[in-house]
């Protein structure tokens, strides 16, 4: 195989791997924005929280309850950590965000920005700011697989496939099931949905919990790949905002596809001009704003 093509494919795979996180996080943002009209700035911090919970469950939780030998591993963490993050999200919704729905949406952005600073500050105080590696990667996912053009870590391949399944499942649930149709109805006309006997405030709370849970899940998946650090979500959330501006938050499928595609673009940019890799998404955002101000999948506003 031509070495150039091989290099593009290899960087493309690594880019796709980042795209997984862009897709899952912008999916969560889109789900929340769709029903609550809230842009959750804390999404990056909740992703960080998910990663830290995985780390804590493995390295510290056992010692806290007096069982030094107990390490709660990756698979239980993959369920537990997102649930805990979702609970935390629901508390934020119930006790803070709920009081802001009648106001301009910028207030909820500012509130979640404050939550971000608090979470980041707390974790910087209690953990190493430069990052801790996650030691709990399961044995079955260690090693590499031969993709023909490169040796790809088995775990990363698992993350790509797993997250594609999760994103598809979420899309299916929202666009094709009864729960999803209620959710979408709640977006269109909450008063009418209330009149049908559906508990809209509860639905809103659960939706926020679900969206933040997705961020937590992405965090757990990220823990074995990147080192777990208090600032891991800080720069990511800004990239996610650009992804969301490019894709438009109106569409679930749009958010996911844009996320994967931009990860790919970013990876391939590394082949041609590495210094531009961390700005290429922002530059694409500029182009999209000039050509299609409402975003690729956005509805006319």
């Amino acid at each position, binding site marked *: 195989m031509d070495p150039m093509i091989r290099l593009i494919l290899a960087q493309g795979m690594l880019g796709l791997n980042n795209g997984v996180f862009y897709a899952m996080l912008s999916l969560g943002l889109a789900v929340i924005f*769709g029903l609550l*009209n809230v*842009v959750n700035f804390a999404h990056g911090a909740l992703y960080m929280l998910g990663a830290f919970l995985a780390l804590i469950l493995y390295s510290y939780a056992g010692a806290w309850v007096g069982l030094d030998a107990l390490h709660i591993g990756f698979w239980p963490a993959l369920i537990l950590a997102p649930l805990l993050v979702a609970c935390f999200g629901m508390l934020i919704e119930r006790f*803070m965000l709920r*009081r*802001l729905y009648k*106001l*301009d*949406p*910028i*207030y909820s*952005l*500012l*509130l979640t*920005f*404050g*939550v*971000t*600073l*608090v*979470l*980041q*500050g*707390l974790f*910087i*105080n209690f953990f190493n*700011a430069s990052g801790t590696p996650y030691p709990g990667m399961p044995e079955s996912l260690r090693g590499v697989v031969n993709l023909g053009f490169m040796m790809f870590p088995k775990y990363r391949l698992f993350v790509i496939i797993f997250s594609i399944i999760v994103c598809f499942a979420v899309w299916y649930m929202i666009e094709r099931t009864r729960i999803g149709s209620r959710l979408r109805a709640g*977006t*269109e006309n909450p008063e009418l949905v209330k009149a049908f006997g559906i508990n809209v405030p509860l639905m809103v709370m659960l939706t926020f919990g679900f969206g933040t849970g997705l961020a937590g899940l992405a965090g757990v998946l990220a823990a074995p790949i990147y080192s777990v650090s208090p600032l891991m979500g*800080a*720069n990511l959330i*800004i*990239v996610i*905002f*650009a992804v*969301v*501006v490019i894709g438009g938050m*109106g569409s679930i499928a749009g958010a996911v596809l844009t996320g994967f595609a931009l990860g790919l673009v970013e990876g391939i940019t590394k082949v041609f001009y590495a*210094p531009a890799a*961390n*700005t290429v998404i*922002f*530059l694409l*955002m*500029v182009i999209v*704003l*000039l050509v299609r*101000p*409402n975003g690729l999948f956005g509805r006319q*506003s």
Partner: protein
Amino acid sequence: MQEMSNTTTDIGEFEENTGEPEHRTRSRIWQGIFWVALIGFLLIAPALLYPVFVMQLLCFALFAAAFNLLIGFTGLLSFGHAAFFGGAAYIAGHALKVWGFPPLLGIATGTLFAAALGWAVGSLAIRRQGIYFAMITLALAQIVYFLVLQLPFTGGEDGLQGIPRGHLLGFIDLNQPLAMYYTVAAIFLIGFLVIYRIIHSPFGQVLLAIRENEPRALSLGYNVDRFKLLAFVLSAALAGLAGSTKALVFQFASLTDAHWQMSGEVILMTLLGGMGTIFGPVVGAFVVVALQHALSGIGSWVQVVIGGTFIACVLLFRRGIVGELARLLKINSL
């Protein structure tokens, strides 16, 4: 989906009251008191407080007042103002250090750069409304941050160091603390007066109309986008003036000046002092800078305190300090 641009804005809760002259007189008296207090403070501050601290305070107060021109008087939330503040600091620093510009020309260079950058960012960001506007400005500011990090002349992680203060107008040595202080005080006062004039000009009234009801301003025949863009450029330029001045005072420009956390801090200053008030940003900047100095011993807990203040302001205290004061005194604008 709820249409974002049509939701009523709650920013500032500032109403033009034309019917009651008694209110207006009271308003004028209190504004006068604030002006006297401000100018009095500027004159005697170096005798009471450490001059470097006051200069830092004034730079941030001007930055916050410039930011307030957008959020408080036009209803636009920019989450990328650190790009203008920090970007101008670097350009002014480079002009002073490498090109050997005199102090005022260096500051003017930084300010002009911020205005140009504001035009570029503003014309992109106003293509979307509401919450998207905030996200776009944040993302564009991140490009500036990466440029500052990677360009050869900025000193990367170390920042741009050793900027000379030089001689004002060729004969006043700015290495003298008091000379530097009164220069900064004068720059602050000029910048603040410019903002005051803008707010009270017919142009400022159109901005208020856009904040209150954009579709209506549009239907009255105002070219809303041009007004928004001009407000953005003015706000960016004044933020750049603040950043350039800070670079001259502290003799360095650092990455933190351009980081998104700085954009967050200026929002907090304005929110805490009172969005859409005249003196609010100055009061807010004072509180935040003083808080940071007082808490500098506890390290990264400062971030927790700042975040907590943010949450408290949004939930309980949306009018801000000066906004609440104006409400207690039953006046419209302060």
